[in-house]
């Protein structure tokens, strides 16, 4: 534990660390002079990894959360001896800001690769990812997706792209599945479903799946409303939803818009059994919950989450809390875990050669992980085979896992009295 927390203080390089590294360099130089072959230690001092995130612009807040996860993982790795198969090489994160713009995504990716990044983690938005994947593919650089959910990102026989988390289809269908299972247990049938989603690639993908899945699950999608992320008012849209009398309202959106929807839905007394987020940036977000206690109580969200049954996940959760003074949530979980997927691959590749790292990632079978799923593995297209979202519900002001059953830490409250109106 002491080793664990030591790395998380995140302070500047101490004098002792500096002296010991300086000493090592001298030793390495001496070794070269003496003609020793074992100089790997001195040669591979760092492994450069690039991240691409919209750290400024409309998604700056969410990107910051993901960045926290990355930083936490890198600190932990470096503090516990770096990449051992590379002689304890430390991971250096090189920043790339996409501002959520496609053209910046490409140029920043190229820059990071030029500057020696052995892999790229990012870029949050599916739209940016769709473009960046061509740059990483051309440069034969492993590209570990973070947050991006659009299904088409791994299509087209690409070799260098990997997605640990569920794609849009998995996210939508597994979340709807989880909801229906819960409804069945509660003897509350769900027949009519309404969906609101932001009209970018992310929301639209989710909307398509919820629509397509209706036949399989036997529900009717009574309203499907795409909206602009920037809309300052959504009262008319929600009135339309209310008029359609759905049993369930599913919302795929970002922070501000999802907040507006929940607030307006509450004021309109929308009358559903539950308000469910789907990969929602707000509904399981601890900050959103803390600031809107009454509004958020009993909201659902299908999202990436850490496994409350895992001791390691709980330790990471505590470390995050200590380092950043805030609660770790979906993006932080992903940032942390994806860095460890790369770390695991680097250990096995024992090389900074991008192709070797790529092959190592493809062979990942990582069971020491913090997600609500079985071991992290990838199929031929680079999709996570066991990727599963958790079903989360806000209870007593805390997001808790209520499904799938084997990871659950609490029983769901369903139907939700206040949304039933």
């Amino acid at each position, binding site marked *: 534990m002491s080793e664990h927390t030591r790395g998380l203080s995140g302070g500047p390089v101490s004098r002792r660390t500096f002296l010991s590294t300086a000493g090592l360099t001298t030793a390495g130089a001496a070794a070269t002079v003496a003609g020793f072959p074992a100089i790997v230690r001195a040669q591979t001092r760092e492994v450069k990894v690039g991240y691409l995130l919209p750290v400024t612009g409309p998604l*700056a807040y969410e990107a910051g959360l993901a960045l926290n996860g990355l930083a936490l993982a890198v600190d932990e790795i470096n503090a516990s001896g770096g990449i051992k198969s590379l002689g304890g090489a430390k991971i250096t994160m090189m920043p790339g800001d996409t501002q959520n713009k496609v053209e910046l995504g490409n140029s920043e990716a190229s820059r990071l690769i030029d500057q020696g990044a052995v892999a790229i983690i990012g870029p949050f938005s599916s739209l940016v990812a769709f473009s960046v994947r061509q740059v990483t593919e051309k440069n034969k650089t492993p590209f570990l997706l973070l947050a991006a959910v659009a299904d088409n990102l791994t299509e087209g026989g690409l070799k260098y792209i990997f997605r640990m988390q569920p794609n849009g289809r998995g996210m939508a269908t597994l979340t709807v599945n989880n909801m229906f299972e819960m409804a069945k247990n509660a003897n509350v049938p769900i027949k009519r479903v309404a969906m609101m989603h932001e009209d970018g690639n992310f929301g639209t993908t989710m909307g398509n799946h919820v629509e397509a899945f209706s036949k399989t699950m036997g529900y009717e999608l009574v309203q499907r409303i795409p909206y*602009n992320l920037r809309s300052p008012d959504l009262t008319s849209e929600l*009135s339309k939803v209310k*008029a359609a009398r759905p049993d369930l309202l599913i919302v795929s959106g970002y922070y501000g818009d999802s907040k507006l929807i929940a607030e307006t839905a509450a004021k*309109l007394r929308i009358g559903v059994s539950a308000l469910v987020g789907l990969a929602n940036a707000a509904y399981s977000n601890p900050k959103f919950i803390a600031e809107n206690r009454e509004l958020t109580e009993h909201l659902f969200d299908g999202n990436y989450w850490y496994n409350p049954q895992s001791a390691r996940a709980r330790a990471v959760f505590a470390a995050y809390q200590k380092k950043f003074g805030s609660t770790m949530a979906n993006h932080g979980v992903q940032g942390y875990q994806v860095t460890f997927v790369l770390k695991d691959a680097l250990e096995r590749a024992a090389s900074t050669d991008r192709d070797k790292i790529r092959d190592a990632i493809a062979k990942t079978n990582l069971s020491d992980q913090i997600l609500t799923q079985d071991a992290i593995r990838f199929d031929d297209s680079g999709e996570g085979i066991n990727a599963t979202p958790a079903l989360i519900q806000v209870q007593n002001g805390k997001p808790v896992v209520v499904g799938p059953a084997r990871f659950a830490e609490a029983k769901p409250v369903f139907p939700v009295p206040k949304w039933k109106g």
Partner: protein
Amino acid sequence: MTGGLLLQAVVSGLLLGGVYGLVASGLSLIFGVLRIINFAHGAVMMLAMYTTYWLFALAGVDPYLSVILTAPLFFALGVVIQKVVIEPNRSAAEHNQLLLTLGLALFFENLALVLWQGDFRTVRVAYSNASFMIGEALVEVPRLVASGGAVLMAVGLFAFLRLTDVGKALRALAEEPEGAALVGINVARIRAAAFGLGSACVAVAGALITPFFYVAPDVAESFNIMAFVVVVLGGMGNFMGALAGGFIVGLAESLGAAFLPGSLKQLVVFMIFVLVLLFRPQGLFGGSRDR
């Protein structure tokens, strides 16, 4: 569709429209007098929203009351911007002035990002969630206050421009800059006053929006483009037109949302925008220099 939905759409549209008008009136004023398209307008509003937020968070000042402080403060900021940044470049090409305000906007936004991060912040006051029903239509009190504030501000500005010397000088400058200088109006001072007044207006707008919306460095993006549409619709420099334009855009958006599928509502607004530019480029209600 049901009558309830129509009523709701009209009510929401008017409330939203008032907010657009509120944001647009300062923009319209600045354009009318200075002939510059002020891209920094939204960013100034964002700064005002942060000021409102911090006054509330640190000193417990009610957002509506904080107007007493923010309006003069942002009048001063506007004067400074005009004197330091815009005035020295008056003789520069128009696109330079345009880029200047754009640069200012980017500067403010990134400054906010550095100072306060990309965090969403909200001001929680007792009346934040206050609402009542008219028939089947929901009326949110803070939005109603903002909308009412827009009307009051437009009337106040109108009276100011008609009845005071500074107001008359502003109008003279808008009508005929050279003539205004010839009759002895201190045009540089009046230009500074115009920018200050425009900034004060948008500061009031920011304060009135804060109780029902979040504050973030890029918050202005939700209102900025619509404010430009509204200004064009109402006639550049005509802030009564801006108010009316605001209501038109708000109604179009809201009715579009209620009765058209998907995100077509934006399409309706921008279609009106393009049509107005094509067939009535001086705006529906005429610009300040409508000759």
